[in-house]
């Protein structure tokens, strides 16, 4: 029987289960509708051919969708046991154009035993594209029971 995730049970170096996502135009459009961020750099393929905001003739994934999927690595891991995200800081390194396939990962780097219901861990976060290039990195603080 699997151990229940708790602050006590977590160790520095633990690696969280990855999330994978293929980035189609449909995936981006659905996120545009969900987030209400309809910026044409994400949604309008014809406009992107000439505007080339990132030097590419293709729509790119929302930076906040990348961040949402980075958060999903955490919510998959910690939310079923009542965990809570406290802070996240992300640097977006490279654009993620339509057709990319990304892997989202995280690992525990710090434990902060500061008190019941406030104990938190720090995670390193990363996103790799299909060529093994890092497209985003970050850190997160997660409160665990």
């Amino acid at each position, binding site marked *: 029987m699997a151990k229940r995730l708790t602050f006590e049970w977590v160790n520095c170096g633990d690696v969280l289960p990855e999330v994978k*996502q293929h980035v189609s135009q449909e*995936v981006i*459009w*659905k*996120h*545009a*509708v*969900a*987030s*209400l*961020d*309809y*910026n*044409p*750099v994400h*949604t*309008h*393929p*014809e*406009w992107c051919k*000439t*505007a*080339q*905001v*990132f030097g590419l003739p293709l729509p790119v994934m*929302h*930076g*906040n*969708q990348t*961040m*949402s*999927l980075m*958060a*999903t690595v*955490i*919510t*998959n891991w910690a*939310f*079923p*046991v*009542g965990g*809570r*995200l*406290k*802070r*996240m*800081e*992300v*640097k*977006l390194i490279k654009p993620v154009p339509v057709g990319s396939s990304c892997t989202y990962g995280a690992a525990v780097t710090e434990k902060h035993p500061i008190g019941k219901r406030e104990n938190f861990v720090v995670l390193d976060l990363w996103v790799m594209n299909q060529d093994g290039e890092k497209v*985003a990195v*970050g850190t997160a603080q997660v409160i665990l*029971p």
Partner: protein
Amino acid sequence: MGYLEEMAKYQKTEKQKSFSADFLERQQIEDYEFWDEIEIGKETVIPFKFEVKAEDVIAYAEGVPDANPVFYDEEYAKKCGYDGLVAHPMFATQVLFFVLKKGHGSWIRTPGSRNPGQIIEWHDPIRVGDVLTVKTKSHDKWIKRGKYYMRYLSEMYDQNGKLKGRCFMTLVLPRSKADVLRFIKGEHALEA
């Protein structure tokens, strides 16, 4: 079928159906803020409010996409230790785009902008039934390697004045209104 019609297929909630998806519409640019005109230190309580409905919470998780049942199933969320349906941590994106339609903070919609990364803090869970108010302050702007960065600090409060979260919203923007108007026409207008 055009791109607006393609996206209309996915619009399900009341807010999604009432929100204008055309960020290239010329008239709304008149209500935007531009990098070279923004004064640092200005603070505004945004007049538009966001009433959180279950359909908003569910629709955001679907759009991530994130299938975790804590975002869809209230009974499951309660078994996990929450007091109701959980909003995905990045739900704040939907709230900010809904309320920052024009005036202070509206530069987050700018055609030609680039997202270099964000900082977000969560102070109290967003719950169905909350009526959220956003207070935003122009925090900093800077030029680095020829790029024009803009950063606002936006805070979300519920109907009882409780702080729910803080976002240091940051984008690289076209420098001026003239540059944004070039992007509206589909031209590239960034210096770097």
